[in-house]
């Protein structure tokens, strides 16, 4: 049976001094230690230079373009003079209106004998609610990208899978609605999927990593 002392030393279970004493008397551990030293020294030679000049050129032009866009956005924001708090209240108001419209829509539906199709007026309201959801989702998606990058890989994959599944559901509903835009069942599924995506993105945005 092979000696386990070198493994224990590598995993930090025994100290340097204890291991040094052992190694003097154990040729197997001595050999493994020597081979590891050889491996690491060969590995250092793999630290070869890579040409990244063209990469910087591409990156620089993209960064400059982004900085320029950001500056012009900031200028237009200053011109409008909308305080940040007001922006937040506007978003919150849009969200509440969306919820209100949705509640009204379902309340109306439950009070009537459904024909399976929405009236033009109801359809307009639902489409408006969908638009408000989509706007909120766009805003949240911009914020969620970085959060996904800094979170635990497994967790990030779970969120990405969940978002992919919801996107598929949204896509299926949208395809079905192309043929029959007033179908209230499909509209209901679509609204549920949009709400689900909105909630998931909010969770991601609220994520606080430990180490960054």
């Amino acid at each position, binding site marked *: 049976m092979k000696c386990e002392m070198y493994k224990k030393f590598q*995993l930090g279970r025994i100290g340097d001094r204890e291991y040094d004493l052992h190694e003097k008397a154990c040729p197997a551990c001595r050999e493994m230690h020597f081979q590891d030293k*050889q*491996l690491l020294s060969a590995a250092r030679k793999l630290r070869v230079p890579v040409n990244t000049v063209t990469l*910087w050129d591409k990156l620089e032009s993209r*960064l400059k373009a982004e900085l320029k866009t950001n500056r012009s956005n900031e200028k237009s924001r200053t011109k409008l003079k909308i305080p940040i708090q007001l922006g937040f209240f506007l978003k919150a108001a849009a969200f509440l209106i969306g919820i209100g419209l949705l509640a009204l829509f379902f309340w109306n539906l439950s009070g009537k004998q459904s024909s399976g199709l929405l009236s033009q007026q109801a359809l307009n309201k639902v489409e408006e609610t969908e638009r408000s959801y989509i706007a909120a989702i766009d805003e949240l998606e911009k914020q969620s990208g970085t959060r996904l990058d800094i979170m635990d890989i497994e967790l990030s994959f779970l969120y990405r899978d969940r978002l992919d599944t919801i996107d598929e559901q949204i896509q299926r509903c949208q395809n079905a609605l192309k043929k029959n835009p007033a179908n209230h069942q499909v509209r209901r599924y679509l609204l549920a999927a949009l709400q689900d995506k909105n909630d998931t993105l909010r969770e991601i945005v609220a994520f606080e990593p430990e180490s960054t």
Partner: protein
Amino acid sequence: MDNQSQINIGKRYSGVMNEEDIIKKCQQNDMGAFKMIFEFYSQSMMRTAIRILRNRQDAEDVVQTTFLKVFRNIKRFQFKSRFSTYLYRILINNCYDSLKKNRIQTDSQEMETLALNPVPGQAMELEAAIQKLPQRMKTCFVLFAIEEFKQDEIARLLNLKVGTVKATIFRAKQHLRRMLSDQLKEGQA
């Protein structure tokens, strides 16, 4: 990444500035500071990405995306962790994302020769052996043995326990010792 990076980055470019000063300049959108950060980290990041993705073009895309994400959000960096940990964490996540997207393609791919500069004979065999390691083992070994990250730093950037990283690196060395036993014995003799 070695302990000296915070000092080296300053010495190399200005003689006065340390990494924190350079990042603060980046937070004010200073293009020169962005370039300093890029020049200091890009080579190591490219090597790591090429080894994980086995493809230079994908690696370039991933490194570029990583820098863009980092520079876009650098104002939010609060110096609570080391910058290199933050940067590499995003890099590794992006690499894994890219692997996930190209999974079918990568699985069917033949072992691709690394698009790095040629290395001497024994090192080339080691390079091929590293490519045969399982993904997480390979990432840990590359960061530790080639890019000289400390084990606790690897643990932080891969979100693993230090013990897990130590065991993974030990297993990686064990696999490599077996794969390269002939060459290592020659060296011993």
